[in-house]
């Protein structure tokens, strides 16, 4: 009996405490930059698609909700022909972002993805690709990779010697 009265009393006292809930959606939630929400595909500093279609995010995803197909443009630059995330399966764990070697896939502070139809939670590349570098500005994978894909020539990347002259026997 006593405990019941105590509970009611304590609850009553809460009326005079500061509110922790907010008037969502009128009032927006404040999220931190590293909050793991909606997933985007970013672009590199010169505006090219960052994703190189390496399939690492797809392999890292514990619920297997990423599917893509890599393809190549005429310069040999890899990009995804299609890139699909089934957000009705995604658990927003962020593994894909951690696995991505090019900073292409990023989780952003946005959770407003509610849909009436589950089918609408299937996002294609058009829905994912944003025109920004996201959280990691300045990184361009093709600058540091060895291959020539229209971004730089052989031996012109960061920390590269000019190509070997096969005819030279000089030390």
């Amino acid at each position, binding site marked *: 009996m006593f405990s019941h009265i105590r509970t009611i009393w304590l609850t009553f006292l809460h009326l005079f405490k500061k509110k922790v809930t907010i008037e969502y959606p009128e009032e927006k939630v404040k999220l931190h930059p590293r909050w793991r929400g909606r997933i985007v595909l970013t672009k590199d500093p010169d505006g090219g698609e960052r994703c*190189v*279609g*390496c*399939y*690492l995010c*797809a*392999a890292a*995803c514990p*619920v*297997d*909700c*990423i*599917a*893509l*197909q*890599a*393809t*190549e443009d005429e310069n040999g630059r*890899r990009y995804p022909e299609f890139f*699909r*995330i*089934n957000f*009705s*399966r995604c658990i927003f764990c962020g593994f894909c972002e951690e696995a991505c*070697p*090019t900073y292409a896939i990023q989780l952003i502070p946005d959770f407003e993805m509610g849909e009436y139809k*589950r*089918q609408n*939670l*299937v996002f*294609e590349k058009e829905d994912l690709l944003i025109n920004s570098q996201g959280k990691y500005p300045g990184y361009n*994978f093709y600058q*540091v*990779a*060895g*291959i*020539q*894909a229209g971004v730089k020539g*052989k*031996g012109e990347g960061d*920390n*590269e*010697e*000019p*190509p*070997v*002259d*096969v*005819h*030279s*026997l000089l*030390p």
Partner: protein
Amino acid sequence: MPTIYIDNKPYEVKEGKNLLEACLTLGFDLPYFCWHPALNSVGACRQCAVKVYKDEADTKGRLVMSCMEGVKDGMRLSINDQTAKAFREQIIEWLMTNHPHDCPVCDEGGSCHLQDMTVMTGHDYRRYTFRKRTYKNQYLGPLLHHEMNRCIQCYRCVRYYRDYAGGDDLNVFAAHNHVYFGRDKDGVLQSPFSGNLAEVCPTGVFTDKTLKEHYTRKWDLTMAPSVCNHCSVGCNIIAGERYGELRCILNRYNGDVNGYFICDRGRYGYEFVNSENRIKQPIIRNRTGEAASEEELMRSMGTILTHQKLLGIGSPRASVESNFALMQLVGHDNFYQGVSEAEAYLTRKIAGWMQTGSIRSASLKEIEQSDVVVVLGEDIWNTAPMMALAVRQSVVKTAAAQAAQKTNLPLWHDAAIKEYVQDQKGFLANITVAGSPLDEIAAHQQCLAPDDIARLGWAIAHELDASLPGVSNDESLLQQAQAIANALKTAKNPVIISGITCYNESILTAAVTLATACHAKVGFALPECNSMGLALMQAPSLEKAVDRMQREGDSFTVVVLENDLYRNISATLVDDFFSHCRNAVVIDSLHNATTEKAQVLIPSATFAEGDGTLVNYEGRAQRYFQVFVPAEGIIKESWKWLWHLYLLKMQAGNGHDHYPNELLEKLESVLPQFKGITKSSPPRHFTIHGERIPREPHRYSGRTAMLADRNVSEPKPVQDNDSPFSFTMEGFKGLPPAPLIPFFWAPGWNSVQAVTKYQEEPGGSLKGGDPGISLFKEPTQTTPLVFHEIPEAFAVRHQKWLLLPQYHVLGSGELSSYTKALQELSPQPSIALSAEDLQGLGVEEGSSVQLKINGTSCMLPVKIQKGLPKGIALVAAGLQGSPVMSWGEWGKIDGMTNGGE
């Protein structure tokens, strides 16, 4: 068996092996690069270091390269020693100083030996801050992509390409720390075995260019064990699918057949499966709306089947199951082979001889291990490529074995043995009509007309066994025969190789006689992947079917199984055949000239979409398994269709499915020559600990997204009732039995090098024995096959030429020719004559000549074939657009420049 101590534990190992092989056999993980079980050791990469101790008291030990040190009884070594580990890690770190930051865009990634070894040694952080070396790449043709920056200078590529496969246009250039592996200039790699570089190279320097077109990581492929269906060798392959498309073919190790390698026709000839030209729906012609549903098809077939007599045309490229199901449907007497009379006759003969058990066929492994090889008449380089590669190994290995014996060097010590061997070779006599690349390594090489080849065969046999009839007093022939006979006399494991492309029975009987005289094994190359299986059914030829049709025609409905008849006999005959039949039902996977004639066209599965069994040239029955379910669910294996039709005809129950094993059991009881074929793979109910074997690796990705664009709720995975496999990633994760290995993978070993974990020992047989069941029994009663007729010497005929087919390894395969990359490498139709004949005709090389035979004629550009005997014309055969004729007959050639008509 010597005992060695690894980290103080005793192990029994095999004598004559090196420490690396011994450690890998025992299941230890020891990193290596330059060593390859098929290429042996050179000690170039320094990656396989271990500590070896003098004796028990020695605590210091010394570092040695395990691949360069033989096992000795009582030897003590340590893999886990700190110095050895540090050394191995250091080696990787050095290799990595120049390695590009490419893994995400590298096609090797995920099945990369360098990745695996880096992880294995524990090197994980780059300390070197200086600049990386770079290289320019080369264009190497449509099959291989070159990315030289990734090279770690292990020399495997050139050792494989030059030493193993005998190519000479890939080499190592430049010097010291910037050696370059490539061609002297951009250009197509010439060897038809070049595709293996993609698997031999432990990094991503050489990768499969056709896979690049639709790139998929190894972990994302749905894979199943399969069998190459582009020639009669029957190499074991792994076929991989993603998103409903066949993506790549990989080698599947089989110690008895292809070992570590396959040819480029086998590796790249897969794209017909994805071809635009596929038949995707049943078609009923001559009505409005030709595309039909399954019910419509069955309804219309029902009326045909119950009211009309049936005649079935089988196929050497269809599985045993499909051919048998057709035989069941049409009845034994109405089943025909679907190949020309000449081909059917010769293949039936070969199958018959093999069945007697008086001669034994040689597997590729036995060819590799033979010490004397005699090739009679067959250009195996182009008709059975991997057999040619095996012959090359026999020549190389025999010389190596002799060197090892003389010098006491271990056989695995590749560099030392090569140094000693220099130009020494084992004995190969390569007797062909027009020469072949094997001539380079032949001790005895000659181009002769078919009859003369047979005579030479007989002459050799006579030298070996004087009771056999001799060939007349042809001096030069006898001299050659003596030379070859002398080699055969001392041979321990001789092999005689021949085939049917000379369309000459005497060559075959000469080969058999010769094999009997010197107790040799034989290898008869056949035209197609299941030629032997079809021949064993002992059915009459296509021409016989045409005859029958002309006689009783009209009332018959013909059922053609996976066979473009226009590729087998002349177009006039086929047209005639179809004009006589009442209805034509064709089951096939690709549209072709024959499917045009079909009133009813039924879509059949390719090797990747269905199960089946093929019998290779040596009588080895091998099962291939369905890789994926085609998007068009109506595409089914031919045997499934035919079985439905059979039930329809019998009006026996409906919906009762049949499975490959039941069909094969029935086959065994109807045709006892196939006894044992059911054992070629475990039955469909086979499970391990109640689990099926998954076709997908444990890290298969995208399951919940790949079909989400169509429907966000994932469909239930398709159930496979025909085999012990599942279409998912769930199931048994350990080592499956040898016939059921869908991919090679072991913890820490993601690349193809994981195969070691599946073998008894590196380069040995798979655990539990190599897959495949020989249908030919061990010889029980040895009544030798006796022949007597020796043909007359070949005589040139006035104004006439003996027509023989000339095949090309890349281009002549019917199905493989649908691959864009191979089309690019395929030669154009042409006719080849000797230089003298060309002069006699008064035409220039390159101009067109008219070839006339049996009332038909065609125009072909002419070229000179070096070495070709006079009076013979070689017509490029099997290419898209090349004419079909009666091989082995005589035709006329008109040079257009001197008159024509």
